[in-house]
């Protein structure tokens, strides 16, 4: 399974993605969790202490193609699985966590790290990895192809006008060729009316509804993973059910 979580800032992408990745791993999948957000987030919800272990610039080397254009490839001797082994960290439940690296200063030169990240992600095989990606809030990365590894894009939306407006913009990801399937995940819901609001407002099929979860707020304040604070909460139950339904669907395809 390969999914990417997108949505408005603060919608709950990272919180859900971290639980999703770990629940998927508990089902026996080999899971790679990807964080391309230049601000920290997913590490907290996975429960990985490492907040800033990006891919170093020397993971790639430049070369000229036959037409004399500058291109990049992983440096010699570094194949994609070796790169994952080397640059990812292991989170609880055995999830591999690979991050782009965080923003450094006003003009941090990180284009080589970006190249390395894309090269690794583009080379992943579904046979080897289940992939759970967490993109930054908004439309920029999503519309520029940073979620292109995903077969299913999950748009996380709260039942608020700004959140569903963002989700409706992101639904355009389904419009271009080689488009992934795009589904909504209603988050911080308090009842059926909220789920219907997200369904109507986003125009997307709702794959799951995650209730507002006070324990998640507590986990956020403490800077710990929800799963490590309390695994018996509404959010965890809802995400576990989302993992099960998407897995069951995939098994049928």
């Amino acid at each position: 399974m390969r999914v990417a979580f997108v949505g408005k800032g603060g919608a709950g992408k990272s919180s859900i993605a971290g639980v999703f990745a770990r629940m998927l791993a508990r089902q026996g999948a080999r899971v790679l969790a990807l964080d391309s957000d230049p601000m920290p987030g997913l590490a907290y919800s996975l429960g990985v202490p490492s907040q800033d272990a990006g891919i170093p610039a020397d993971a790639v080397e430049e070369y000229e193609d036959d037409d004399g254009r500058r291109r990049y490839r992983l440096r010699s001797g570094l194949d994609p699985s070796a790169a994952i082994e080397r640059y990812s960290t292991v989170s609880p439940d055995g999830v591999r966590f690979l991050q782009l690296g965080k923003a450094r200063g006003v003009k941090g030169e990180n284009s080589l790290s970006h190249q390395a990240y894309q090269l690794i992600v583009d080379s992943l095989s579904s046979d080897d990895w289940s992939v759970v990606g967490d993109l930054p809030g908004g439309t920029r990365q999503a519309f520029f192809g940073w979620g292109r590894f995903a077969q299913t894009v999950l748009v996380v939306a709260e039942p608020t006008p700004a959140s569903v407006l963002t989700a409706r913009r992101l639904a355009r990801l389904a419009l271009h060729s080689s488009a992934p399937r795009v589904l909504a995940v209603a988050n911080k819901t308090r009842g059926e009316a909220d789920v219907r609001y997200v369904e109507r407002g986003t125009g997307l099929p709702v794959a799951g509804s995650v209730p507002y979860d006070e324990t998640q707020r507590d986990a956020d304040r403490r800077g710990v993973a929800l799963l490590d604070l309390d695994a018996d909460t509404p959010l965890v139950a809802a995400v576990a059910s989302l993992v099960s339904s998407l897995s069951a669907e995939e098994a049928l395809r």
Partner: protein
Amino acid sequence: MKVAVVGKGGSGKTTTAAVLARTLARRGVPTLALDCDTNPNLGLSLGFGEERTESLIAVRDAVDEGDQEHAGSAEELLARFAIEGPDGVRLAVVSAIQNPEPGCP
């Protein structure tokens, strides 16, 4: 006064910016709200409503597409791109990313 509001996603930037803008305007200060988010929602928090928020053409996009000459004065740009809303706050969007651009990572 020129203020930029920044912070993590979901921390309340847009809400803070909107309340700041309308409070200033209510005190009689001519106020321009600039939405610099490529996923622009500031109009919703300012009370412009969804339709007017979505109708705004981003300044940067118009310049890039050649609809608008560079080097117009601020007043000219605002006359073309800004709309006025509750409490007289004027709103303009700087740069919106509205559609997927595959092959452009």
